[in-house]
């Protein structure tokens, strides 16, 4: 079997951000379910948090392409 271990590394690197994004949207859904009128404010915060968490996965993807050898 041949291939680049960098892609395997990316798969591992995506686990953390995946869990993080899941937690953020779980909290967002909880918040909206409790207080539907806060939706607009929570939406901005949720997407900002998602963008910051997702940055880790994106860095992993870029590094996978850089280090594929």
């Amino acid at each position: 079997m041949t291939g680049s271990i960098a892609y395997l590394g990316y798969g591992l690197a995506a686990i953390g951000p995946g869990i993080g994004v899941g937690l953020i949207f779980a909290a967002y859904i909880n918040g909206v379910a409790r207080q539907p009128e806060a939706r607009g404010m929570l939406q901005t915060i949720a997407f900002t948090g998602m963008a910051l968490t997702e940055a880790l996965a994106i860095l992993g993807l870029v590094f996978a392409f850089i280090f594929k050898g």
Partner: protein
Amino acid sequence: MSLHAMAANVLGGLTVAGIPAEGGGEGETFQAPGTEVFYWPVIAGQDSSWAITRPAVVLLISVGLIGWFFIRMSGRRLAVVPSKGQFVGEIAYDFVRNTIAKDIIGGKDFIRFVPLLMTLFTVILVNNVFGIVPFVQYPTMSRIGFPIVLTLIVYLTYHAVGIKTKHGIGTYLAGLIPPGLPGWLKPIMFVLEFLTYFVIRPLTLALRLFGNMLAGHLMLLVFIVGGEYLLLHGDNIGLKGAGVLSFAFSIVMTFFELLVEFLQAFIFTLLSALYLSDAVSEHH
């Protein structure tokens, strides 16, 4: 170079999915599509200091489309009961002005930045959606140069606004440290905040857009090219069935891409507004 060749190159986007598989020889081994699908021959100006490439043509088309749409909309008298075109334009403007700029920057400062944010949002959205529009099918932002330029505009703007608000570079840099910290913590916080403002923010802003567009387009290609290979070169009925399934799933993924493309335009504009709101606030 003639307009003909340019048009042919743009229209050639339809066959982009077929290239890597066909290039890999008649079905001996499957060649998964890689980053090479984003490299296209230079259309004009190979030997000079400038060049027109396929993403540049897509970008120009998008700018022309957006300009035509909004100039046409503002040229005629706006109706109280909007036409379809005016309705779309109003929704987009309302979204950027109220949901992004007003909610995040707030106060009376936000209206200054609405033109910048509106431009960023429409350019990124149209260019991203071009990734799945038939005959164009090239997400401009999957070439890192384009997100870098957009990020550079945002980067220079929020630093310039910050320096202007704080009346000088010295006070701007001093303002990076959150107030109310013990003295020994200040140097550490300054290094961290400095890195955040000057390195991490622009880096992630550009790479997020680039990475999402690149990965999304590659994923679609894997499903379509892989489905084509399974269907045409599969040995038994099971593999051919998997090929059909892969094609069907690629349609689902195309709609998912539409969501991601909108989301990325939204997030880029949202984060730009967030950085600008940091810059216009007097205290950190």
